[in-house]
Each structure stands twice: as C-alpha cells, then as structure tokens.
C-alpha cells in the first residue's frame, strides 16, 4: 500500500468567498498580517502499489476536482 495525497484548490481567477471569509475573520481575533486565504480540499488515498500515476491523475481530474474551477496536484508520500 502507498499513501497518495491529492490537493484540490480553487483556481486563482475563481472567487473564493470561503477563503475571503476566513481572511476577514482573522483580524477580528487579533491576528494581523494575513492578506489572503484560499480554501481548498486535501484527499488522502491508500492505494495498491500497482495503481499508476496516470490512473491517479484521472481520478483527480475526472472526480476529485472539477477542472473548470479547481486545480489539483497528486503526490505520493511516505506512509
């Protein structure tokens, strides 16, 4: 088994109202100096050794992310 992490983030040009709300809440709690927050998703997959990078890319592109509004990145990590 291998562990794979897929990060899905809203594209830079896509409005991210959730991230904005988080950014706007920080000064109210006394945290200064954070000018921007983007909110995304992280998926952790446990996969068999024979699952290749191309398959992982298709999982990310066709299902975990919607490429109209989101960018994705797949990486294998030490489990």
């Amino acid at each position, binding site marked *: 088994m291998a562990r794979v992490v897929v990060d899905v983030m809203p594209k830079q040009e896509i*409005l991210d*109202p*959730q991230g904005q*709300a988080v950014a706007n809440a920080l000064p109210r709690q006394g945290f200064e100096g954070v000018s921007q927050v983007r909110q995304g998703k992280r998926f952790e997959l446990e996969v068999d050794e024979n699952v290749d990078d191309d398959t992982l890319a298709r999982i990310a592109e066709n*299902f*975990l992310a*919607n490429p*109209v*509004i989101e960018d994705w990145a797949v990486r294998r990590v030490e489990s």
Partner: protein
Amino acid sequence: MSAAGARIGVITFPGSLDDGDARRAVRRAGASDVALWHGDADLHGVDAVIVPGGFSYGDYLRCGAIAKFAPVMTEVVRAADRGMPVLGVCNGFQVLCEAGLLPGVLTRNSGLHYVCRDQWLRVENNTSTWTTRYEAGADLLVPIKHGEGRYVAEEPVLDRLEGEGRVLFRYVEDNPNGSRRDIAGITDERGRVAGLMPHPEHAIDPLTGPTDDGLGMFLSALDSLVAA
C-alpha cells in the same frame, strides 16, 4: 402524441427534495409523470427527463459530483445525446453541469449565505424546447433557494453562450448569488437540455407559489413532445 400520452420522468436521488413538486408540475401541465430512481439502468420509455432540486448524495465532494455517476445518469446522458429534452433545476442544474451536458459549474454564492426568496428573471431565449411558451424579454417571478448557485465558466465559454443565444434566463433587479453575467439558466447547442437555479416547479399555482410563471417551462416541453 396526445398531451396525456407524453411521459416525463423525474429522477429521485438520495437527498432529492423537489421531485414531488416537479412531478406535480408535469401533471399540472397535462403530461403523465414517471418516477425514475437513481439506481435505474433504463428510463422506462419516458419522452423527457427532469433532474430535480435537492441535495443529491448530501452534496458530498461537490454539488452533483456523485450524482453524475448514478446508473440513471448514464442513460440520461445517452438520451440527451439522441435529443431527448432534459431539464435540470437547482441541484439538477448542478448535476447536468457536472455530467458535462451543460458547460460551466455552480459554485458557492458570493455572499456565502443560502438565499431563499422570490426572484425576478428575464426570459432571454424563447426558442429552446423548455421556453417556447414565454415571450422574449418577459419577466417571471419564481422562487430561488440555494447556497451554491453562482454560475461560473471561462470567459470564452460565456461569450459563446451569449453569442449563440444560449442564456435562457437572467436575474433582474438583483443578482442573488454573484453569477457571472447575471446568468440564471442556460441551454445546450440544440436547445433541448436546459438548466436553471430558480424553481419553476414551485411556481405553477398562485395558491402554493408566488405566481404560475414557472408552468410555461413544462407546457413548452409538452408542446414539443406533442408536436413530435
């Protein structure tokens, strides 16, 4: 085909909410309603399909992202390719976008708030299968109720939708969710597949909705089925 002989299917997913009202709207228009289940591997011979509002599969992952893989949706995509009229309302619009039948995607409302109110819409296109009963430029008052209704697509896609007259409805007076170019509903290249965030099925009778302005969508589709 007679009006009553026209069979319009309404899909129920786990988490669908507005399937009952959609079927009622079909009956009010004079057609026969057919219940379709998300696990169905065929469409039971229906002549048109409505994908209703709600929270299919709990809106997990993204709105409509899991529903697009339901067995019944495979058949809907096939039928739409053959020209069957398909209407997606609210969550149904999100499902049709995720399934690739309509371009773009619906994202979190720009104000972050869930919006539930009666909304004025302008009819931009009265030549699609679902809008022939309206006059171009007519204003309709129809309920909206959604948290993720901000229509987003890349600029060239938006330009093409505008250029080809595929924007069906636009929000007027006030854009409730930050949709690009105030878009409330669109159609596909052939004008057979339509999606919109507002709820025409909740506006078919002044007793239970703000107006009966929504009934025209169901009558329009029925007209095309009867004429076929």
